[in-house]
């Protein structure tokens, strides 16, 4: 059973074809099944997230999915600031780090699609005034946006 319906797949494929430029890696940190470990906490949404991302990344040849385990790949997780699962990290022409924590459903999926385009181009619709302010930031800043599924 797929998560994205036929019409959605067509819409997403068209959106990506129009908006994507360079390649983007979608890196999912999740909980991989291993014969060696018996996790005490099951990540219920990890499997859905992985399936959704597989379906999404199949819709553009500029998208690549990489799956990591939070525990086995702890060094990489730490470097990217990943603390929870599922977390998605986008890598393309972005200067800073972009993370999504939790299943990207509903409104968050639309945000993800927009960001895929921006990350693939390395540019957004920000104003020149904003870019100036960002260039003179006094130090690193982490912006957390807390949302609920719509």
């Amino acid at each position, binding site marked *: 059973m797929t998560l994205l319906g036929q019409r959605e797949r067509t819409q997403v494929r068209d959106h990506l074809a129009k908006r994507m430029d360079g390649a983007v890696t979608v890196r999912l940190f999740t909980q991989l099944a291993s014969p060696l470990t018996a996790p005490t906490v099951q990540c219920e949404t990890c499997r859905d997230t992985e399936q959704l991302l597989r379906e999404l990344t199949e819709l553009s040849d500029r998208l690549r999915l990489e799956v990591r385990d939070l525990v086995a790949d702890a060094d990489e997780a730490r470097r990217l600031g990943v603390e929870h699962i599922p977390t998605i990290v986008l890598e393309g022409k972005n200067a*800073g780090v972009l*993370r999504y924590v939790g299943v990207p459903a509903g409104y968050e999926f639309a945000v993800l699609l927009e960001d895929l385009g921006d990350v693939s181009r390395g540019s957004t619709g920000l104003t020149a005034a904003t870019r100036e302010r960002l260039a003179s930031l006094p130090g690193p800043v982490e912006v957390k946006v807390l949302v609920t599924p719509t």
Partner: protein
Amino acid sequence: MAVESAQVTAEVIEVAEFPLIAQRYQVYGVPKVVINDRVSFEGALPEPSFVERVVEGASGRTGP
């Protein structure tokens, strides 16, 4: 902003799945934006105002 600036890390968190995070940040209305765990606001802000809050959060100053 994170796309364009190496100083910015952006994280979107779906808090219905992470009630402890919702609790930590006292999320009553969404979207709630938290900057450097220091400055926060709820709801949407126009771009210039959003950016000013980000600058505040980066420098440790709070507004007048």
